[in-house]
């Protein structure tokens, strides 16, 4: 009884997650070694490793891997650095701090498709967009963001969405700093830089780990922002792994090749996850 009950309680969640993982995985493995094009149902048969070969030798593949990592790395870097900066700026009370908090967190609740279209049209349009107007105001030539800096544009959109999250986590963490210690350091004439180096930054360590972990989970598979703005282009300039597999599956209708790609993506994600879990797991384990 003592052993049975906990298992019974755990079972539904574990079983459903196991199904959620195993069933698609087995199907994906099966699809990846057969010829399976949704548009050509008459072409069937065992394909061996052809699909993998096709996906791996596709020049888009390496581009997509690099783009995935660039997107992940840049967004994490931007949000962590800016998040720390902003949270330090609003750590002490000032007039309107409550309102600032509300306004700052808002972008986090904006759905990715809205975020993407808002930036694509109203902000980044090279003629009518706000950024173009600002550029013109300063006498510069407006930038055609989505054509000239497609990946950069996606990075901006995603960072805008995730910066509030990082900021709020850091802010929450700063609230629990030992105030007496800070006071003492100030009394003893510690400069702001010294306070940063020896008090604030070490205190934020854990929350940086949390932010990196959660962002990584969500950023490995950024999709909607690319789908609604650049469509992965121009060329493959803003195609990440998620979008490349989507292109193979639902635009080229080649489920076989897409499945091969999906398996490769899972392997990549697991390599990333292994690093991360080692790093964060230690940090979260009390």
């Amino acid at each position, binding site marked *: 009884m003592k052993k049975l*009950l*906990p298992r019974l*309680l*755990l079972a539904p969640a*574990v079983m*459903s997650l196991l199904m*959620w993982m195993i*069933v*698609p995985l087995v199907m*994906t493995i099966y699809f990846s070694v057969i010829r399976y094009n949704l548009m050509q149902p008459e072409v069937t048969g065992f394909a061996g490793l052809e699909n993998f070969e096709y996906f791996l030798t596709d020049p888009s593949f390496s581009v997509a891997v690099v783009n995935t990592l660039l997107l992940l790395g840049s967004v994490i870097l931007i949000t962590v650095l800016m998040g720390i900066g*902003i949270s330090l700026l*609003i750590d*002490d009370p*000032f007039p309107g701090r409550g309102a*600032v*908090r*509300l306004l*700052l*967190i*808002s*972008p986090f609740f*904006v*759905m*990715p*498709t*809205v975020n*993407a279209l*808002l930036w*694509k*049209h*109203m*902000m980044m349009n090279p003629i*009518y967009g*706000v950024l173009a*107007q600002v550029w013109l105001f300063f006498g510069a030539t407006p930038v055609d963001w989505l054509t000239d800096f497609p990946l950069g544009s996606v990075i901006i959109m995603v960072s*805008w969405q995730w910066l509030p999250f990082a900021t709020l*986590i850091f802010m*929450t*963490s700063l609230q629990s700093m030992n105030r007496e210690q800070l006071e003492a350091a100030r009394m003893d004439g510690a400069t702001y830089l010294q306070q940063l180096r020896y008090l604030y930054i070490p205190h934020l360590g854990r*929350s940086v*780990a*949390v932010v990196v972990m*959660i962002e990584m*989970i969500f950023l490995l598979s950024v*999709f909607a922002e690319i*789908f609604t703005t650049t469509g992965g282009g121009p060329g493959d300039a803003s195609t990440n792994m*998620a979008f490349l*597999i*989507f292109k193979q*599956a*639902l635009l080229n209708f080649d489920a076989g090749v897409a*499945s091969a790609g*999906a*398996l490769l*993506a*899972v392997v990549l*994600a697991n390599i*990333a*996850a292994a690093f991360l879990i080692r790093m964060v797991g230690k*940090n979260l384990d009390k």
Partner: protein
Amino acid sequence: MAHRSKYPPALILRTLAAWAVTLLLFFPLGWLILTAFKTELQAISVPPLVLFTPTLDNFLEVQERSDYLLYAKNSIVTSVMSTLLGLALAVPAAYSMAFFKGKHTKDILMWMLSTKMMPAVGALVPIYVLAQQSGLLDTQLGLVIIFTLSNLPIMVWMLYSNFKEIPHEILEAARMDGATLWQEYYRVLLPLSIGGLASTGLLCLVLSWNEAFWSLNLSSAKAGTLATLIASYSSPEGLFWAKLSAASLMAIAPIVVFGWFSQKQLVQGLTFGAVK
């Protein structure tokens, strides 16, 4: 003006800097709100208009043209149902792991989290095929199942880290006094963990409401959520900005306002108890 002296220059500087950064970051959203109340011509005027007579026409037209209410209903049903279903699965699991810690508890937790790291797109083809063959393609039920499963690992984690903070002795005392499992949960655990439950539920609601990958790929005219409605506005190049803004505003306003009210809960929960 006598109280002016209470504001030292450093504070004034800090206040100005904080507000400048905030307004800059909020600007895109503010602009979206403004544009939603413009006419199409005003929306693309050069230089951009800040002062104008607001109109509500866009909102009416969005409803007429693309049946906003249908998509809103789908969003509400799928996010609420998947949150409830997710809690029903995650609470017992987290309870079991937090209070009956076994040899493999840690491994199970890590494994759960790792399923979340696999890109959803890896499962796209099989899930699409399964949904098609079981008739769940473009249905609310299909989306509810998918949302629940994809949020489950995070929900279990959040609840687990919340339950772990509750002293075992309290539960044991209740058990000694002859409380059944349900009483133990309902009278002891629930009151103590209501904050954690709330933040987990809230986050799940927000994630499901904003979910775009599965809803874009598995739903369209019948079960489409607001995220898919907005994506359908991406094709006609520019020139419908006012309507796009109105539709967007209607899609995000409920969840943003909801988020404002629950932000403290939400952040506390999201930190997995690692940040106090």
